[in-house]
C-alpha cells in the first residue's frame, strides 16, 4: 500500500500547471512561474542522477559484500591465532611416557604446581604456616613452620597442588610464597610392574628400574614413548598366579617371568611382595628384621635374588651331556648308590635306586645320575658350558638391579663342584638366568640376551648358538616328558603342550649353610613344546607344606600349578589357540619313552664312568654333607668356594 502522492501535475484547480498550459495556450503564466517550472524540470533530472548515483554506490557495496563474504572470503587467520592462544597450552612433558608393548601407559608425567617459599620474605613463619594449613590440611604446621624459617631463599612447601588448591593458596595473598610449574610421575598400572619401572624421586629423577636405566633417554626424548616388551596383561596374570601360590603355601615371596624364546623379550616379570609406585614404600614398612627375612618389597627377586637353582639345572646338565655327545637318549647312569666324595654324600630324594635312562633321570629328577652325568661331561667342559649358557655373568637386562651369579672361580672349580652343579647346587643364579638358559635350550639352541625393550616386529634378535638344533629338539621332548610323566604334571594345560622342569632347593642362611625347611620351589618351562614360543618361570620363596599338598612344599606342588595357571590365562591373551584337535598327533611327535630303546647297530655311548671317590651309600634319610651353597642370596662379592657346612640336601 504505497501512499502515492497525488501527481503534482494533477494538482488541484486554481493552480496553474504546465500540462494545462501545453494543452490550453490561452492560459497565461507569469515569467517567474515559467522559470520555476523549468528549474523544477531540471531538478527532477538531477534527482534522477542523484538517485542513480546512490544506486551505483550501494550496488558497489553490495558487490563488495558478496565478494568479501562469499566469493572470496578472507581466511580468519587472526581467529586461528586467537584460538591457539586461548586454548590451554598442551603440556609438554619433561619426561617421556613409558608404555608396555601394546602402548598401555605404565608411567606418565602429569603437570602439577609446586608451592615454594622464600623464607627470607616470610615475616612470621608460624602465622603463615597456620594460614597455609587452613587451605592445605595435608600439611603439618610444625614442619611448615620449620621450612618457612631460616635464612634460606628457597624451600618447597608442597610439591603437587591441584588447581583448586593453588587458587586457595593464591587467595591467601601471603607474600613470599611462589608457585612453580612442575611434574609428578604417575603410574596408572599401580603395582603391576613396580619393580621393573622402579620409580622416580621427588624431583623426577629415576631412582630404580627402567626409570633409572633410561633416565637420560626419558629426559632427552620426552616426546617419544619408551615402549617396553612388557605386556601388562601378562604381568597381571603372572602376579595373580604367583600371589595365589604364595598365599596358598604361606610363602614369604615369589617371582615369575614370561619370556619370548625367539626374541628374548621379557613379556612379564614380577617379584612379590611388591609395592605401589604411587605410594612409595614407607620407612615404617621396612623394619630391619623383616627386611632381612626377605620382606623388603623393593627387592626384585627376579633379577637381584640369586638362588641355588636346584633340579631345574639338570636340564642344563642333560643338554651339555647330549651336546658333547657324552650321552644318548637311551643311555643312562646308575643311581642305585649314594655318592660319597670326601666328606660329602650325595643322595636322591625318593630315589629309584637303580640304573636310570636319560629321560628317567629328568622325569625322576635324580641327583645321583645328574652328578654322574656332569662328571661324565668333564669338569672343564662343564664349566665352559655353564659360562656359555650365561651363568657366569650378568645377563645385560636393562635394569640397574641385576645381580651377578655366584659361580665358583675356574681355579676353584673341582670335580665336586661339577657334581653338585650338575643338579643345581653350589651355584646361585637369578631366576632370569634360569629362564634365559632354558629359552636357549628349547628355541633351537640360540642364547639371546633378555631384554625389557620391545623389539620392532620382524627385527631379528641376535643370539649365540649354545647347543645344536638336535640337542634342543631332544631337550624339548625331555621337558615335555617331565610334565606328562614327571614332577611337573600340574603345570600342564591341555592343548598348550607345556614342557619344563621343577626345582626345589634348600635356601642358604645368612652365614652360609642350608636352612631346614626353607626352600625355593621353582618351575621353569616353555610352551608349546612342538614349537616353543614362550618360556616361563615361577618361583615361590619359602613355601610351607599344607594339607592339600599332603605335607609337601616341593616345586611340583607349589610352582608347577602356578605356572599352569599362568599359561592357562596368558596363552589366549597372547593369541595362542589350544591345539586340542590334534592332541594325540602332536603329543606323539614330541614324546619320548622313559627308557628309549637303543637303535639297532649303534654302539652304546661310552660315558666316562663317574669316578666318585665314594664308598657304598649311606641310607637316604641320613643327613648328608655337601659343598656349601655359593652364598646367601645377596649381591655380595664372589664367595670363597665351598666351605663345608652341614645341610640336608634333598633337591627334587
Amino acid at each position, binding site marked *: 500500500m504505497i501512499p502515492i502522492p497525488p501527481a503534482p501535475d494533477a494538482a488541484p484547480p486554481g493552480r496553474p500547471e504546465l500540462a494545462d498550459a501545453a494543452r490550453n495556450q490561452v492560459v497565461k503564466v507569469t515569467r517567474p512561474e515559467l522559470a520555476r517550472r523549468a528549474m523544477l524540470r531540471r531538478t527532477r533530472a538531477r534527482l534522477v542522477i542523484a538517485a542513480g548515483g546512490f544506486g551505483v554506490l550501494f550496488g558497489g557495496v553490495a558487490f563488495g559484500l558478496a565478494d*568479501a563474504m562469499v566469493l572470496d*572470503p578472507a581466511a580468519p587467520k587472526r581467529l586461528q591465532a586467537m584460538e591457539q592462544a586461548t586454548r590451554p597450552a598442551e603440556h609438554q612433558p619433561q619426561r617421556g611416557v613409558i608404555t608396555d608393548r601394546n602402548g598401555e601407559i605404565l608411567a606418565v608425567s602429569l603437570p602439577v604446581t609446586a608451592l615454594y617459599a622464600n623464607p627470607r620474605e616470610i615475616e612470621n613463619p608460624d602465622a603463615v604456616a597456620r594460614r597455609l594449613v587452613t587451605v592445605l590440611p595435608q600439611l603439618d604446621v610444625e614442619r611448615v613452620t620449620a621450612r618457612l624459617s631460616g635464612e634460606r631463599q628457597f624451600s618447597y612447601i608442597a610439591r603437587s597442588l591441584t588447581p583448586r588448591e593453588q587458587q586457595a593458596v593464591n587467595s591467601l595473598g601471603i607474600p613470599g610464597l611462589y608457585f612453580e610449574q612442575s611434574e609428578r610421575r604417575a603410574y596408572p598400572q599401580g603395582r603391576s610392574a613396580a619393580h621393573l619401572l622402579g620409580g622416580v624421586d621427588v624431583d623426577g629423577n629415576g631412582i630404580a628400574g627402567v626409570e633409572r636405566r633410561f633416565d637420560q633417554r626419558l629426559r632427552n626424548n620426552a616426546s617419544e614413548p619408551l615402549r617396553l616388551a612388557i605386556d601388562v596383561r601378562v604381568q597381571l596374570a603372572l602376579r595373580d598366579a604367583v600371589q595365589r601360590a604364595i598365599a596358598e603355601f604361606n610363602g614369604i615371596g615369589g617371582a615369575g617371568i614370561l619370556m619370548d624364546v625367539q626374541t628374548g623379550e621379557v613379556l612379564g616379570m614380577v617379584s612379590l611382595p611388591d609395592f605401589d609406585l604411587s605410594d612409595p614404600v614407607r620407612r615404617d614398612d621396612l623394619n630391619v628384621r623383616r627386611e632381612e627375612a626377605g620382606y623388603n618389597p623393593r627387592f626384585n627377586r627376579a633379577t637381584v635374588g640369586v638362588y641355588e637353582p636346584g633340579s631345574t639345572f639338570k636340564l642344563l646338565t642333560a643338554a651339555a651331556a647330549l651336546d658333547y655327545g657324552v650321552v644318548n637318549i637311551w643311555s643312562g647312569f646308575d643311581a642305585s648308590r649314594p655318592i660319597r666324595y670326601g666328606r660329602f654324600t650325595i643322595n636322591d630324594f625318593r630315589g629309584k635306586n637303580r640304573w636310570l635312562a636319560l629321560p628317567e633321570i629328568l622325569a625322576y629328577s635324580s641327583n645321583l645320575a645328574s652328578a654322574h652325568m656332569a662328571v661324565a661331561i668333564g669338569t672343564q667342559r662343564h664349566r665352559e658350558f655353564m659360562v656359555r649358557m650365561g651363568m657366569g655373568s650378568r645377563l645385560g637386562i636393562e635394569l640397574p638391579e641385576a645381580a651377578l651369579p655366584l659361580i665358583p672361580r675356574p681355579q676353584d672349580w673341582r670335580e665336586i663342584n661339577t657334581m653338585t652343579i650338575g643338579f643345581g647346587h653350589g651355584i646361585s643364579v637369578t631366576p632370569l638366568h634360569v629362564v634365559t638358559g632354558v629359552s636357549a635350550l628349547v628355541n633351537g639352541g640360540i642364547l639371546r640376551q633378555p631384554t625389557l625393550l620391545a623389539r620392532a616386529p620382524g627385527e631379528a634378535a641376535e643370539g649365540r648358538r649354545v647347543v645344536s638344533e638336535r640337542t634342543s629338539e631332544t631337550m624339548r621332548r625331555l621337558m615335555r616328558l617331565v610334565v606328562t610323566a614327571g614332577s611337573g604334571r600340574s603345570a600342564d594345560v591341555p592343548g598348550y603342550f607345556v614342557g619344563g622342569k621343577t626345582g626345589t632347593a634348600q635356601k642358604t642362611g645368612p652365614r652360609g649353610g642350608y636352612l631346614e625347611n626353607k626352600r625355593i620351589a621353582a618351575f621353569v618351562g616353555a610352551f608349546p613344546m612342538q614349537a616353543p614360543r614362550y618360556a616361563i618361570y615361577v618361583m615361590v620363596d619359602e613355601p610351607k607344606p599344607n594339607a592339600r599338598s599332603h605335607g609337601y612344599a616341593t616345586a611340583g606342588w607349589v610352582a608347577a600349578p602356578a605356572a599352569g595357571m599362568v599359561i592357562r590365562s596368558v596363552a589366549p591373551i597372547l593369541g595362542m589357540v589350544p591345539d586340542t584337535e590334534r592332541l594325540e598327533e602332536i603329543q606323539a611327535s614330541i614324546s619320548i619313552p622313559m627308557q628309549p630303546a637303543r637303535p639297532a647297530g649303534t654302539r652304546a655311548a661310552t660315558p666316562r664312568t663317574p669316578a666318585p671317590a665314594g664308598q657304598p651309600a649311606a641310607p637316604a634319610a641320613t643327613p648328608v654333607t655337601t659343598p656349601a651353597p655359593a652364598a646367601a642370596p645377596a649381591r655380595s662379592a664372589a664367595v670363597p668356594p665351598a666351605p663345608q657346612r652341614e645341610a640336608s640336601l634333598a633337591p627334587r
Partner: protein
Amino acid sequence: MIAVSRADTSVLGRWWWTIDRWTLAALLALIGFGYVMMLAASPAVAERIGASSRNMFFVRQIAYLGMATAVMVAVSMLSIREVRLLGWVGLGGSLLLVAATLVMGAEIKGARRWLSIPGLGSVQPSEFLKPCFAIVAAWLIAEGKLNRRWGATLLAIGLFLGIAALLKGQPDIGMLLVITAVFFAQFFVAGLNLFVVGFVGLLGLAGAGLAYMLFPHVQSRVQRFLDPSSGDNYQVSVALEAFGHGGLLGRGPGEGRVKNVLPDAHADFVFAVAGEEFGLVVCLLILALFAFVVVRGLVRLMHETDLFVVLAATGLLTQFGLQAFVNMASSLHLIPTKGMTLPFVSYGGSSVLAIAMGMGMLLALTRRRLSRAEDET
C-alpha cells in the same frame, strides 16, 4: 497497523495519513537492527576497554535509540515552516557549540569534537550541525534560485565556509567531507550549471590532492588503502576476516569470534560484526534498507513542487546515504578508511539523535499535503 480513521483530523490522525509510512517503516527497521547489533557487538568492546559492565554500551544505546525514535516521530510531525525554524535554531545552537569545542572541548584521539555537557554527558555538536545546515542551506539556495536573492546564496556559501573552518579546526575532516558533499549535492539538484559542476568536481579533486599533500594522516591512510601491505591495516583486515568468517548465513547471533578483536566493533565497524554473525543475507538486507530510504526518497522528490523541500530532502538523504555508504564501504575496504557511523546501527548518542532529527525532518518535509500555501498558513 494502527487503526486510524481517515476522517480523523487530529494531529496524530493527520500525521498517520500523510506520513511516508514505507520510509518510516524502513527507518524503524534500521533502529531495530541498531538494538540487535549493539547487543552483538558492544559487550566484547566493553570488556576489552575494561568497562564496569559488559552491557554498558548496550544499556546506553537502548536509551539513545528510544530517544531517537521519539525525536524522529516528534520532528516528523512538524510543518515545513517549523522544520525550517528548527533548522535555523539548530544551526545556530550547534554552531555555537562547535565553536565551543575548539575552546573547551575534550581532546580525544587528537581531535576536539566533544563537549561534555552536565546532565547529558559527551555530545558531539557537529552531528547536529549536519541536518540543520542541510535545511538552512536548502532554504537559502531555494530563495536564491526562486527569488533571485543572490545574497541568500552567498550567505549559504559563507555559512558553509565558516562551518568548514570550524570543522577543520577540530579537526573533523570526515564531517567536513559529508557537509561539503551534501552542500554540493543540494546545489547540483538545484540545477547548478554543469560546467560549474565540473569545475567544482575538479576543485574537489584538487582539494583531495591538497589534503593528501598537506595532511600526513590522510596521505598514510590513502597509501594504506592502495597498498594494504604498506602499513597498519589492522582494523580493515580484521573486519574483512569478520566478513569472511560470516559467509552467506553468518555464524549465528552471539557466535562471532573475530568481533572480539575488532577495534570499534560497536561503532565504525559494526557492519563487520553484522557480517560475521548474521551473514551476507542480513548485510544485504541492511544495505537494501538504506538504499530503499535514499533512492525512494530521491525518486519521490520528483513529484515535489517545492524547491526548498526538494533541496532540503536531498540534503538530508544525501547525508544519510553517504554516511551509510562511507561506513559500509570503508569496512569492506572499498574506500580508504574514514571513521563514520552507520546511521542508527552504530553506537553513539549524538550520532543517533542527530540522524533521528534529520530523518524526522525528512519525514516532515515529505508528508503529503495539498500545496505549499496550505503548509505556509
